[in-house]
């Protein structure tokens, strides 16, 4: 097999993108990750990194192991082999809630919102990690706890404005259409003011207009808050437009890694994925 994989592992000191954004050093480094379910290897010896401030896409055909990869990063799966380095230190196996507390927020492919709660309450849960007052102060609703609640409420309102969902603030999530649910989930993840934001197919099942909106929000989030974003997406056009660097997976292996231009012209990637794309 001709192996012309363009493995342009970016240097860890950072780089400047074509549109002039400065990308910082490595925030998350995945080293030789292998994940098995029984006898099935979902991820086979994959390494790549995510640098501060960039939009990093993970692409690949169905069943390539993309969501598994995201679940490894967010602590829902614990890999059998390999290490996850976060901010220059190897990370011990953590529970998902501990990963979230470290500042890694995520959304889910199939939307995991609190259906019975209002949009506002859903987004407020994203700020749980920002609220420090103890349980007694909370229960008694005394001064500092109350001030904290108000302060966090303001931060949440800003995010709600930012994502243009003011009109549905008080609506129970269960009544919202699919596209808006996706946006609320993004709002909840943003409310945590994450260092790293993981988006699992943020545009799956959306129409063109909704996709454009979501793309704009992702770019704005990255631009205005400087949030590092790793996302999984199927729509190649979207991926090529949004991302700074792309990891390509196929059958649990990494078959490409680099800028959209490099990946797009890589023969192995084309054979595995782009060649059979219907876009």
């Amino acid at each position, binding site marked *: 097999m001709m192996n012309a994989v363009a493995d342009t592992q970016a240097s860890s000191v950072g780089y400047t993108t074509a549109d002039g954004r400065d990308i910082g050093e490595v925030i998350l480094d995945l080293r030789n990750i292998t994940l098995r379910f029984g006898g099935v290897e979902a991820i086979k010896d994959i390494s790549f990194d995510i640098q501060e401030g960039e939009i990093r896409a993970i692409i690949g055909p169905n069943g390539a192991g993309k969501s598994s990869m995201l679940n490894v990063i967010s602590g829902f799966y614990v890999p059998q082999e390999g290490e996850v380095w976060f901010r220059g230190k190897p990370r011990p196996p953590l529970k998902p809630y501990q990963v979230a507390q470290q500042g890694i927020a995520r959304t889910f492919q199939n939307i995991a919102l609190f259906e019975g709660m209002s949009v506002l309450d859903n987004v407020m849960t994203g700020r*749980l*990690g920002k609220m420090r007052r103890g349980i007694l102060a909370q229960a008694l*609703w005394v001064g500092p706890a109350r001030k904290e609640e108000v302060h966090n409420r303001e931060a949440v309102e800003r995010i709600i404005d930012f994502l243009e969902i003011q009109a549905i603030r008080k609506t129970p999530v269960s009544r919202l259409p699919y596209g808006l649910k996706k946006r609320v989930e993004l709002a909840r993840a943003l409310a945590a003011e994450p260092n790293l934001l993981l988006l699992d197919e943020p545009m799956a099942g959306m129409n063109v207009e909704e996709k454009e909106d979501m793309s704009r929000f992702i770019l704005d989030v990255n631009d205005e808050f400087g949030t590092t974003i790793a996302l999984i997406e199927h729509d190649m056009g979207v991926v090529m437009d949004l991302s700074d660097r792309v990891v390509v997976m196929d059958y649990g292996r990494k078959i490409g890694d680099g800028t959209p231009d490099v990946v797009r012209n890589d023969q192995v990637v084309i054979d595995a994925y782009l060649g059979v794309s219907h876009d």
Partner: protein
Amino acid sequence: MPASLLYGVEVLINGLMAGVLYALVALGFVLIYKASGIFNYAQGVMALFAAMTLSGIMEGDIPFSHLINAMFGTQLHSFGWNVPAIAAILLTVVVMALLAWLVQRLVFRHLVGQEPIILFMATIGLAYFLEGIGDLMWGSEIRTLDLALPQGASLAIENATAVLGGDDFYGFFIDKLDVVATMVAAILVAALIAFSQYTKYGRAMRAVADDHQAALSVGISLNFIWVLVWTLAGIVALVAGIMWGAKSGVQFSLSLIALKALPVLMLGGFTSIPGAIVGGLIIGMGEQLFEYTIGGPFLGGATENWFAYMLALVVLIFRPQGLFGERIIERV
């Protein structure tokens, strides 16, 4: 107004107040079921255990004194002091929180993701364990709970309402303890609702009740929330235990009131706090009213024993999710 109608109203009011106590027990069930899907059979025993602990602490009894005496041949019984009611209640809350932590740590932590029936069986085990440990700690004799709560008929209400009827009506007979219980329950429910709506932990509790995966992804520790929920259920059990205990003494039969909460839950649904309250009130009123109008005159009385279950059965036939429970929708 004719006297018979006024007596009917009196029966209704008394039923309402009995219903408040049913609702209190049901509330404990709902809290735990919502957050963890566990039907806590031990809720009634928790009320008994809480009441025993409160009584024991107040009277300055030494916990496990029988055991200690039997092992070491000592004659310990009491510290010889009396703890004021408020301090004793706070200490009991601490004990219930500790119990919650132990239950989560030693039992349910290891059963996460198991079938509901297995979790249910575990709570049956827990019920018998708690009953035994309660006896071991505080002894098995009937205890009194003297919190100086007002008791007996309220003359004020009786006199004030006597004017409503004619010469053969002497005013509503209402137990002061029932009035107190109603007020305490109302405060407790209001506090619980405020806690769950406007605080970080309340929100986290609702989040866990709604979706475990999503809750984890925003940084909520399920274990912590479950301990919190068991603690709250313990506090609710304590309040229920105080009220029932003040009424009929702290004894084993206290744990059987949990059975009365079952029809309340069937009526109100297992996941609805307002449902538990309204369900309790409906059962309380319904059984008194049925006894007064039909049961007593035509069926030989004592219909309170089964009326609640019949009512729940009828409701279940027409609304399997209860009156307020979340709709069960299954897609084919």
